[in-house]
């Protein structure tokens, strides 16, 4: 078994177990939490154009989904990461600018960052390709290795496309989401009206201030359905992304043999190659190969 390395009790206690617990919490609790909140807000807002606040609430829920995805991923690609506790140490620090930095920098990323986020490149600075690990473990099936390479490239492409879309959504949604949370102003029609550039009133428009001194933001009835749609799509996509990040990073913990104190595949597990692709990126045969692949560990003869 080529993929082994020592684990000290200190690193296990301070880095590995907390990291795995945080990722499992994201995948199994926080993603379902955000999905429940988003679906609830979208259901409440759908078809109620006279309640624009409900659209704002859905936008707020959506921005939370985007923030969760950013918070899970950023520690692995943030050059300012503090090394003392590993990425989980960064995840539990509230940093109000992290999500914006994450989405604003994502357009500069290449395939390497995507490979790190999908755990296709592991080890220090993503220096160890996962496919190499499998080859060093003895994998020789050319068709399977080819499917892995194809899935790796497709996952990177898909992730970068999704991040581009989410970066745009983040810019559109975050001001309105903050407004909903910090100072939503629901101006009743009896007080005033939103007017267009010709000073004509826009009936039913909703007004809010994005920040003190800034131009106010408005949502007219014809914009609300579109805003709700963007909030819904972005939120759900961000949750898929967060789940993929967490699940992919948890891959490494399958190889953790706590009793022996080493990195080694100590148990059999299935579908060990994380991938997140579009329907047409892989053939059905390639999908089947990836899903059928499992790591089976023989008893150590020593």
């Amino acid at each position: 078994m080529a993929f082994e390395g020592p684990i000290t009790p200190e690193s296990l206690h301070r880095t590995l177990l907390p990291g795995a617990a945080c990722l499992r919490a994201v995948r199994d609790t926080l993603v379902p939490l955000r999905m429940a909140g988003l679906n609830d807000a979208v259901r409440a807002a759908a078809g109620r154009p006279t309640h624009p606040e409900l659209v704002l609430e859905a936008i707020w829920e959506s921005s939370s989904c985007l923030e969760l995805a950013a918070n899970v991923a950023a520690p692995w690609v943030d050059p300012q990461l503090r090394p003392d506790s590993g990425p989980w140490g960064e995840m539990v620090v509230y940093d109000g600018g992290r999500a914006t930095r994450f989405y604003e920098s994502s357009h500069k990323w290449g395939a390497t960052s995507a490979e790190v986020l999908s755990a296709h490149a592991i080890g220090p600075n993503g220096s160890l390709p996962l496919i190499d690990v499998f080859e060093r473990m003895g994998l020789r099936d050319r068709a399977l290795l080819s499917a892995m390479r194809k899935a790796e490239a497709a996952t990177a492409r898909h992730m970068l496309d999704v991040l581009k879309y989410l970066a745009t959504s983040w810019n559109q949604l975050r001001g309105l989401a903050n407004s909903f949370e910090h100072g939503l102003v629901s101006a009743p029609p009896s007080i005033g009206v939103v007017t267009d550039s010709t000073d004509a009133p826009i009936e039913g428009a909703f007004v809010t201030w994005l920040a003190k001194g800034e131009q106010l933001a408005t949502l007219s009835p014809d914009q609300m359905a579109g805003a709700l749609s963007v909030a819904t799509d972005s939120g759900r996509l961000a949750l898929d992304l967060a789940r993929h990040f967490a699940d992919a990073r948890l891959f490494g913990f399958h190889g953790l043999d706590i009793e022996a104190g080493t990195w080694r595949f100590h148990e059999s597990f299935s579908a060990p190659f994380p991938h997140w692709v579009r329907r047409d990126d892989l053939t059905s045969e390639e999908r089947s190969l990836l899903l059928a692949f499992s790591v089976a560990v023989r008893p150590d003869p020593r």
Partner: protein
Amino acid sequence: MQSRSFRIDALEGMGASGSGGPEFLIYCHGGTRRASLRRSSINRALALYRRASTGGGDAYPEALLVLQRVGLAISDLTRLLAGLRAAVQGDDAFHALRQTAAPARTQLLDELVSDPAARKAVLGLAPPTASTTCPRELVEAITAAYAAADRQWLDHLTEAQITWRKVAAVSKACRHGLPILPKPLVEAPPGAGALSQGIVTGPGPWAVLPQTNVERADSAMHTTLTVVPLSRQELEEARSSSLRALALFRDLAYIHCQRAAGAEWIVSPKALRALGSAEVAVLKQFGTRLGL
């Protein structure tokens, strides 16, 4: 983006001293609708929790959603209080409402619970003194009404303070995607390592909230672990407390609008119920000046 503007047609008291500015006044005019939105949001989350926990499940995601929305509701109250204080001081209340950080709002809530004079000033409970335009029996009735309002509002503030202490951090963590570890992750092998060290747990479902402060000067990190109880009773109590906080939010916002519009003495309709019939009769006699 299309060019749009907001034309204010009628905003009574917009320029009045102590109004806090037009944005704050508009915010207060929307208080009832805002409180209703938050209340509905909390009730929907609790309904999700009840459905998910039917049959004995712990329903961690839904439980956390309830606490997040409870936290947002009480946060609204603390923001309004920060705005009202700024208005009383002649400052820009909308700026204070939006920019006062959570620790300062927590401190304000503590202050209003413990200091009657601060409460009187911020909530507008200073009674008039007798004069030719304010007869003695009216002064006495208003004083009694304000004392009743103070007792009721103190109860709501105290309850909000207790719940806020429990939910503020977990609500913020939910909002911003910070990890919260449910009990099974911490208790079942292999555990959570350093994130379970030294925690004191109780019965029922709970979650661990790790909070890390970073001293930027030396990048030193200090993580504290808080156990958040998530039993059904805790959630129901948090909901009740937040609904009362929202009721207070609505009343204070309404009263501020009335005061800015020129009503001299404002008596909460709920406070009237605590008064004797003679006092109520006096207040009603002067009702137009009371903003009732």
